[in-house]
Every structure is written in C-alpha cells, then in structure tokens.
C-alpha cells in the first residue's frame, strides 16, 4: 500500500535525501524529498519542540508534572504516545529523571462487550510496549454520571426515571434521541471532552495532550464553524488554559495527518500493528442521512492537504489567533459547559432567528442556558 507521504518524484532512479545527502529519499516533507530517518526525525522534533518548556520547568520543581494523554488507538494518539515515551526515555538517560509523567486513558465509545474486550486487549499491548506510564480506560457511559451536565437541557429527563436501565442503555437512548447523524456525533464529542476533563482532574493532571494533527485542527476549525460553534474555537484549536480548569494542548499541531500516518510505519519498536486506521472514506454521498458535517470536513481536507498543505497549516494558524472574550458577563452552557455571553438563548434570540412561527414548539417553559451549537444539536 502506498502511503500519502511515500510518493517519490517520477520514480526512475533513486533520489538522495535532501537533508542528510546519504540515504535514499523515500518520503516527502512538503516538497522536499527525504529519507525515512530524516522524516521520522522531522516529525519527532516538531512534536518535542512543542513540549520543550517542560525541561526548563523540571529543574525548578520537585514533583514531575502530570499530563493526560487520551489514546484512541488511531495513528495520531499512538504516534504521540510513542514520541513522548522516547522523549521521557531520553530525559531519564541523561538526567535520571523526567520532567513529566503521562497518564494514558482510553475511552470506549462502542459499548458492546466484544468491543470492550478488544480494546482492553489492545491497551494491554500498549502497556507492554510503553510500560513507563500509567494506564486506565473508561466507558463513555461514565459521562452520564457527571454532575456538571444538566441532562434536563437535553430534553430527555425520562432517561433517569427508569432506574433499571444500565448506563450503557441510557447512553444509547440519549444518543439515539438526537435528531441527526451530525447531532449524534456532536453530543458524543461533547461527552467525550467532558469525561476526559473529569478524568484529568481526578488524577491530578494539569493538562490534556490532544494528538490532533494540523489537518485535524483545520477540520475542527471548519466543522465547529459549520455547527454554529465558532464562539468556542479559541478553546478548540489553541494551546493553553480551557474554561474547564484544565489545560488543552496539541503537541502534533505542526504535523499533517498524512505525515503522522506515514510516521506510524517508521517507529522502532513498531507500533504499526497497534494502530487502528480510520475507515477509508469511500465516496461519501452528501445526501445520505448518515453523513455528518465531520465526515464532509475530513473528506474536504484530505484533498486540500494533498494539493495545498500550507493552506491547511494556515487555516490553523488563523483560527489560533482568535482570543476568548474577556470582560463580559458569562454563564456556562448546561451541556458543553463552555462560557456563553449573558442572554444567549441557544439558536433563538439573534438576528438569524427571525420569527417565532417557524419554531418547533417546546413543551417545557423552563429553558436552560444552552450555547448555539448544543441548542442546534438538540433542536435539529
């Protein structure tokens, strides 16, 4: 199989690596042909540079800092774990201590027993390979017991009246009650984020290290914009504090998705067998009921990345310039928990909400504070 990063120029005679001038060039960094070794070094350096400040801080404080690393088993999180494991190993070798510790967490999204077993086995393999770190796993259903989400706002309080249901069944009912595939994906990602924040806090992690690539962050920029969540971008694509009281950081933000994928075949020890590749996007039909906005953006940026990688990076640079608003009254969305301006009424009460006649009737008079995006997902 030819990986996107693998393509050589017009493959007559072997090209020599532009960086070391020794080995045969097998990969590309943007337009530069390089060997596998130089390519792997490039990816590693990009990620480690983002973590660099840790070394400095380590000398001043005694206890190592703790970071949560969410591991989905995809190419990005697997690569990040590999790179940081190496980084920490180097620190031990040179200084006999490390600047930080990793708390690796896997969240099970699919809750049937076979899937759970499979992911538990896979997590064991990661543990075997990178044994230095702490590991744990949680089911997404645990998000249902988070006290800081107002489930009434989701309009399905009936879920809690029937006590004999398992949390898995409740989660499935909750997701099933969402009006579209996009809304389902949206609520899943909200629950995932809130659960990760909870796990990070419970375990004393000061930041979450998300493994999003440049391409993924560009997708997110446009996906969130398309879902009416433009207001939340400062916390979704930038490094730093989140409103949840835990830092969000993206060490792979300078690496394209195709570069991350290519990287997974170059590691020693190999992680190739441990990586779950995403389902290939066979021509998504835009009319299909199961297609989500997220799917469309993945597909869109796959082609942009192929021809215009720097434009992908520029999208991320651009959205990272957005700054959270300060100095205004805020309250939190009852579902996603992000700050919204006082007076925000979900998809209602703004210029684009032009008449009440076309509104769907709401049963309850009490309306919870919802951000535009969550309100859209609930109301369809």
């Amino acid at each position, binding site marked *: 199989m030819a990986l996107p990063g693998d393509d050589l120029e017009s493959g007559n005679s072997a090209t020599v690596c532009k960086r070391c001038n020794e080995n045969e060039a097998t990969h590309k960094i943007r337009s530069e042909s390089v060997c596998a070794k130089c390519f792997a070094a490039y990816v590693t350096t990009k990620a480690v540079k983002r973590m660099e400040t840790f070394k400095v801080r380590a000398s001043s404080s005694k206890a190592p800092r703790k970071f949560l690393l969410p591991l989905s088993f995809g190419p990005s999180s697997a690569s990040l774990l590999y790179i940081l494991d190496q980084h920490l190993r180097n620190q031990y070798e040179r200084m006999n201590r490390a600047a930080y510790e990793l708390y690796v967490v896997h969240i099970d999204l699919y809750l049937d027993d076979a899937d759970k077993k499979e992911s538990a086995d896979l997590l064991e393999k990661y543990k075997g390979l990178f044994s230095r770190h702490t590991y744990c796993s949680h089911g997404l259903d645990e998000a249902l017991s988070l006290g800081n989400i107002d489930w009434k706002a989701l309009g399905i309080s009936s879920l809690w009246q029937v006590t004999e249901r398992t949390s898995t069944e409740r989660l499935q009912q909750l997701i099933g009650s969402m009006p579209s595939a996009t809304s389902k994906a949206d609520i899943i990602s909200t629950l995932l984020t809130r659960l990760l924040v909870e796990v990070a806090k419970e375990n004393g992690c000061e930041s979450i290290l998300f493994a999003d690539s440049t391409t993924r962050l560009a997708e997110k920029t446009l996906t969130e*914009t398309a879902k009416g969540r433009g207001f939340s971008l400062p916390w979704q694509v930038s490094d730093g504090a989140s409103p949840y009281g835990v830092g969000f950081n993206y060490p792979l933000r300078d690496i394209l998705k195709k570069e991350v994928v290519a990287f997974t075949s170059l590691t020693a020890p190999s992680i190739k067998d441990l990586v779950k590749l995403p389902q290939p996007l066979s021509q998504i039909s835009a009319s299909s009921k199961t297609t989500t906005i997220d799917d469309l953006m993945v597909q869109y940026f796959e082609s942009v990345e192929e021809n215009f990688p720097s434009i992908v990076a520029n999208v991320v640079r651009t959205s990272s310039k957005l*700054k959270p608003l300060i100095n205004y009254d805020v309250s939190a969305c009852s579902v996603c928990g992000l700050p919204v301006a006082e007076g925000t009424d979900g998809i209602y009460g703004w210029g684009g909400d032009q008449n009440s006649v076309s509104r769907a009737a709401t049963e309850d008079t009490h309306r919870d504070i919802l951000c535009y995006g969550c309100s859209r997902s609930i109301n369809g």
Partner: protein
Amino acid sequence: MAPVPCAICKTSRALIIRPKNHQKLCKACFIAIFEAEIHHTITTTALFSPGDRIAIGASGGKDSTVLASVLKTLNERYNYGLELFLLSIDEGIKGYRDDSLETVKRNAQQYDMPLKIVGYDELYGWTMDQVVETIGKKGNCTYCGVFRRQALDRGAKMLGIKHVVTGHNADDVAETILMNLLRGDLPRLARSTSIVTGDSTSDVRRSKPLKYAYEKEIVLYAHHKKLDYFSTECLYSPEAFRGSARTLIKSLERVRPSTILDVVRSGEDMAKLVPEEVTGLSQCKSQKVSLSSADGEEDGSAGCGSNGRSSGGEMADMERKLQDDEAASGREMEITAVPLTNGQQHARVAGKSRKDVGRKLTRQTLGTCKQCGYMSSQDICKACMLLEGLNKNRPKMEIEIDVEDEESSTLRRKIEGLALAAG
C-alpha cells in the same frame, strides 16, 4: 397521497418545502413569512430611518430584483418612509450588460423607482473593454474587481445618496466566512459578518437586508412572485477560494439545512474574537459597525476572476507564497515553542502566554484616499493606483473576451433551487 396542509395556515395545501427548515407551506404563507423575516431584520437592526434615500444596487439578477421588490412592498406596508432608487453599474463590456440592464430598466418601471446607470467610463474614465485593450485579458479581473467595489459607492455619491443596499444573501455571507478562514484573512472575516458596513462618519453606508435569507428561498420567492429577473448575474466563475467555499457550503447544506445560518452565526461570534491588533478596531465597535468594503472583496455575488475555475490558480499561488514564507522563517519558528500553561491559572484569558508563532500581525488603520477621498487603508486607494498605471500607458492590444460558457452554470444553480419547490 393526501395533500399536506400548510404548517402555518393549516388550511391551504402545502406546495413548498422551505429550504431553511423544511417546513411545508402554502404559497401565500411562504411569501408572507419571507417578507416578514426581512422586515424583522430591518427593524431589529434599525437599518433605516424615515426619510432615508436608499439606493438599491441592482444588477438585474435574482438577489437584487427580490431585494427591490421586497423593499417596495415593505416600505408601503409598514410606512418605512423611504425614498428608493435603483443604481446599476455598467462596466463597459460590449454586450455583457445589455440584457441585464434591460431587465433593470423594466424593473424601474414595474416598481416605479428612479434608475441611475453609472458607467465605468463616467466614474473612472475607462470602460472595461478599454482596460482589456490596454493591459490584455490576463489580470483584467483585478481591475474589474477593484473598480466594482467602489462603483456603487461612487455612483451613490453622484446621486447624493448615503446608503446603498445590496442583494447579498445568507449563502454569500456563509461562503465569505468559510473562504476567509481558508485563506487566513481574519480582518475580512470580521468585516463581512456585519449587516452594515461604514457608519455615520462615512460618506456612503452599505447594508445587506437579505443577510439571513437563503439563496434557495430567494429563488423561490422570485419564482412565485413571478418577478422579472435576468438569470446571468456574473460574467466570470468565482476565484478558487470562493469556489471551494461555495462547493463546501452546498454539501453542508445538504447534510444539515441550518448550516448556512449556523455558519453566519459562527462568523458573527468569531468577529468578536478577532483581536484588535488584527482588525485595527476596538471590540465594541466591530460588533455593531464595521469598516467599509474599501479593500475587501466581500461581494459574494460580484465574482470576477476569469481563470479561477479551471486552474485553481489562486490557491496554488497562495500555497507557493506560504511555502516560501515557511522556508524563510522556518528555522526560527521551530524554536518558538508555545509554552504549556498551567491549567489552574487562566493565563490565556489574560492574553499573555500565547505568542503568535506565525507572521507579524499588521495593524490596519483606516483613512481616505488622498486622490479620490474614498475610504482606504493606504494613502492612495487601489482604484487610483490602478488608474494611474492605466493612464500612463495606453498601448493598444486587440483582445476579445469570450463570455459564453459561463451562463449555463448560473442557470443550473437556479434550477436546482427551483426543483425543491415541487411539493
């Protein structure tokens, strides 16, 4: 199959599925609600005051024709007290405007509105045909675009009118937001979202009363009101970024019809998050009023870019430029790591810990052109600079523009919209 009753009046048969929210409506209720929504936009944003003289930028296309028709209706129904004018631009391309200007002339009679047609020759001393003769076909869209941006404002000034309304719809605004994200232009993104550009201090304000109206609903309205409009609005296909954003918006709309509105909302919210050093505007100001379109290509429907479609050249050019920038500053940039902030202190909210890794943000300040007095961020505005160049050399080159194959695509879009009307 039993006929479905209209969701609003519950009596008439529903014949229209509203593209915006898939509500099933009868013809009369659709027309009523479409007008009521634009009335809502006009009143909640206090767009007009009694006695205002308003120029409607009229191209003869569906958007501006619907705008003229709706404004006339609302002005009479709600006693806005407006004096409405039609203002059309003639670029001076032989044959191109003939049909659309005929349409506008008929509209002027139908709506009983005074019409003013201003030509590029009158405004700039050059027709587009003469520009093409001088500089050749390549690059002429730059001239046309720059001239067009100022033409409506200059035309309004000639009429002594201080407020121009244009037919930009929600699709155009959403497209512009995505486009500016794709090409990394936050100042333009921020500007494009506000309903009014320019304020009381500027000579001519611009606004877009159809900002929240779906293109498909505009087509439906024009169709059911049997409005007289010209189906080719735009001579050229859009440039690559806009074309790409347009395709994306269409796909998104199919997956979730509300997306067009949702993108507009995101854009409005994001405009408030663009730091002052990027916009050159204070936050409170940028929320309500924004700069004029002096330097901006905000005009969604006024596409001009004769070779954008086939080559994707604009995106390739930008890619090349970005790669050069990266190569130049690459080494330094790699060292500037963003420090991880402690989650407990909301350091980023204080705006301190984030260092911009990319290029320097240039502060834009707004003044007026020293030559023509038109709003500009430079001493001499782009139009005057281009004119200076043109006036210096008038070499002759005979080049023809071919206009033919563009018409079909606009027509196709129109038909797509109409297809939904089948109830």
